[in-house]
């Protein structure tokens, strides 16, 4: 099985250190932020007593932290595989990490020292209108933290863009646009390059959109005569949020494309439908964000219609191409179950299943009674917790797996069971809460909602226990540096 660790993926000492920094920090942050999540669920269960002020600080840190950490860890996946095809700069990769950590420190300082509780979406004008709960200074530190993080990601994307253009000529050719209508698709054109190019394009725009609203809000925080249009700010904020979170999925899925054939023993090659899917999603992911504003009746009607139709459409191309690829590649392949492939199948299941409640909620007449209920965290935790996280874990388990081709250990089996059962129950309770019309982001829940919160708390403990187990194994493996990656 030497093809499992191809020569092009060997890491130098410095590269390995940088990658370990990303991954170990990512694991630690995930565990910390999951315990923040558990704390919120326990508070809603009325099993612990924290002030609403603390609840909202924790909620802000959990949201911003999770979105950022998923971005960080999935950019490590993109870097690891993309560097096989183009020459990426190690200093830039490290600079992204440094910006992230600095930004994260600012965010945590703003929330827990400055008491900022404006949520990860920092929806204008809440950051500068807290009713005295936090200061404009705390809001400014939070927003500067985001800007620093965004700068790191932008640097990383610019470097990747430069490197891709050097090899492929331009971004269109890297996306494979030249084969959409005619010509023979080069079967060896790497999916990694296609996905990376798409992410570079959309997420640079997403981050720039975020930067615009952040800078305008910052100016407003100190010069209150400079007023933003609230609806415009909301558009930019959700454009940024939607594109950023989706880009993380698209970076993490690179690992699926690369690792799948190594564990099923079935190679797959580039095809025209696959290129179409990524080209279509490049456009769709940029125009779909109005589905976050379906209850803003002042939005133009055409934007709402795009929001609904693009929600149906965006779910489809890349997701369907990927799910189809994984299912047909796994089916009757005669594979032997190993951690990475189990996690990949779990991830694609979580992504597929999580899309169901998400797409239904993209319908305006459903959104009217589901928007901003717990239905929403229900569907996004579904494809983040049971989709993206398993993709990231699959990548990490692959890194630490030896040539020995170890079968799944008892411990890992236990971890998988706890993660799946706990994860499904946890997201199920959010969805059940949404079905019961419970609003999201309530520090205090009515008594009749508490049973859901309590079951979810127990389920979250299971997830965290599993995550601790995975993280311990992975961290040990990474720090021990397997011979084939040296």
């Amino acid at each position, binding site marked *: 099985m030497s093809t499992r660790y191809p020569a092009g993926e060997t890491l130098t000492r410095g590269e390995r250190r940088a990658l370990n920094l990303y991954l170990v920090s990512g694991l630690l942050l995930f565990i910390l932020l999951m315990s923040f999540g558990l704390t919120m669920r326990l508070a809603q269960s009325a099993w612990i007593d924290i002030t609403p002020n603390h609840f909202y600080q924790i909620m802000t840190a959990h949201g911003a932290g999770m979105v950022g950490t998923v971005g960080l860890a999935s950019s490590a996946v993109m870097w690891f595989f993309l560097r096989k095809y183009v020459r990426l700069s190690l200093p830039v990769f490290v600079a992204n990490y440094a910006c992230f950590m600095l930004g994260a420190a600012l965010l945590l300082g703003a929330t827990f020292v400055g008491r900022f509780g404006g949520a990860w979406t920092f929806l204008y004008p809440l950051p500068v209108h807290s009713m005295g709960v936090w200061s404009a200074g705390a809001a400014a530190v939070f927003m500067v933290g985001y800007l620093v993080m965004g700068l790191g990601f932008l640097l990383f994307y610019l470097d990747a863009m430069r490197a891709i253009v050097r090899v492929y000529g331009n971004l269109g050719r890297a996306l494979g646009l030249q084969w959409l209508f005619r010509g023979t698709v080069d079967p060896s054109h790497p999916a990694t390059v296609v996905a990376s190019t798409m992410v570079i394009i959309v997420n640079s725009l997403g981050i720039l959109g975020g930067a615009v609203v952040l800078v305008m809000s910052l100016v407003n925080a100190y010069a209150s005569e400079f007023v933003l249009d609230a609806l415009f700010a909301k558009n930019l904020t959700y454009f940024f949020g939607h594109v950023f979170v989706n880009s993380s999925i698209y970076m993490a899925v690179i690992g699926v494309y690369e690792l799948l054939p190594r564990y099923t023993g079935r190679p797959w090659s580039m095809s025209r439908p696959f290129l179409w899917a990524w080209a279509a999603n490049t456009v769709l992911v940029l125009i779909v964000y109005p589905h976050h504003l379906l209850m803003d009746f002042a939005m133009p009607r055409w934007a709402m219609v795009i929001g609904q139709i693009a929600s149906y459409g965006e779910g489809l191309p890349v997701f369907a191409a990927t799910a189809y690829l994984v299912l047909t590649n796994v089916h*009757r392949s005669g594979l032997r179950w190993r951690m990475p492939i189990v996690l990949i199948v779990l991830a694609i299941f979580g992504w597929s*299943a999580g899309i169901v409640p998400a797409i239904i909620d993209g319908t305006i007449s459903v959104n009217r*009674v589901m928007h901003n209920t717990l239905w929403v965290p229900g569907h996004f935790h579904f494809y983040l917790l049971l989709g993206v996280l398993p993709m990231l874990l699959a990548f990490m388990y692959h890194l630490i797996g030896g040539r020995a081709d170890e079968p799944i250990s008892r411990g890992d089996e236990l971890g998988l069971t706890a993660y799946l059962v706990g994860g499904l129950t946890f997201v199920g309770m959010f969805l059940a809460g949404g079905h019961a019309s419970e609003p999201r982001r309530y520090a205090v829940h009515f008594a009749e909602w508490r049973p859901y919160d309590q079951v979810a708390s127990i389920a979250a403990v299971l997830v965290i226990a599993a995550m601790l187990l995975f993280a311990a194994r992975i961290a040990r493996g990474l720090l021990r540096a397997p011979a084939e990656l040296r």
Partner: protein
Amino acid sequence: MMTIQDEVGVLTLAGIAGVALVFLYVIHGATRKADAARVEARAGAIRKWFFLGLLVLGAGVTAATLAPFPIPDQQASAGTRHVVDVVGHQWGWRLPPGPIEAGIPVEFRVTSADVNHGFGLYDSSGRLLAQTQAMPGVTNRLVYTFARPGRYRVLCLEYCGLVHYGMSAEIVVSAAGGARP
């Protein structure tokens, strides 16, 4: 009676169960080996019909759920005698005290005095009936007809800071003709 929430719940469960069945089938057959070309040919045939089915379903659902357009015209008044101006603020709702009658469309003109809020209309059993955003500088028109008299609740459905969870108000709807419930 099935509420929208119930329909969505059933659809979601059915969809997730369908996805799970496909995965279980594939997982079940994963460790046996068959010719890749054969698997691909069969899957390719299924794919064509599956996508065609999805496309037809998507187009059908889009047409059925967008016409008539589910959001009232924002430029013109609904032409009802019940117009209710609602202002959300940190952390409460300003609603006129006047009576609201069941069976007549009510036009809520919703805005905010400070940050974003969400005007969520709940019945007495805690079910969400309709909502719109309450936003500074913008007035959103929500039209709703209360089928039955009774006590209804307004909860905030957009995060607005420290007391977001406590931002509620009551709306009393009287029987047609004005009798209090």
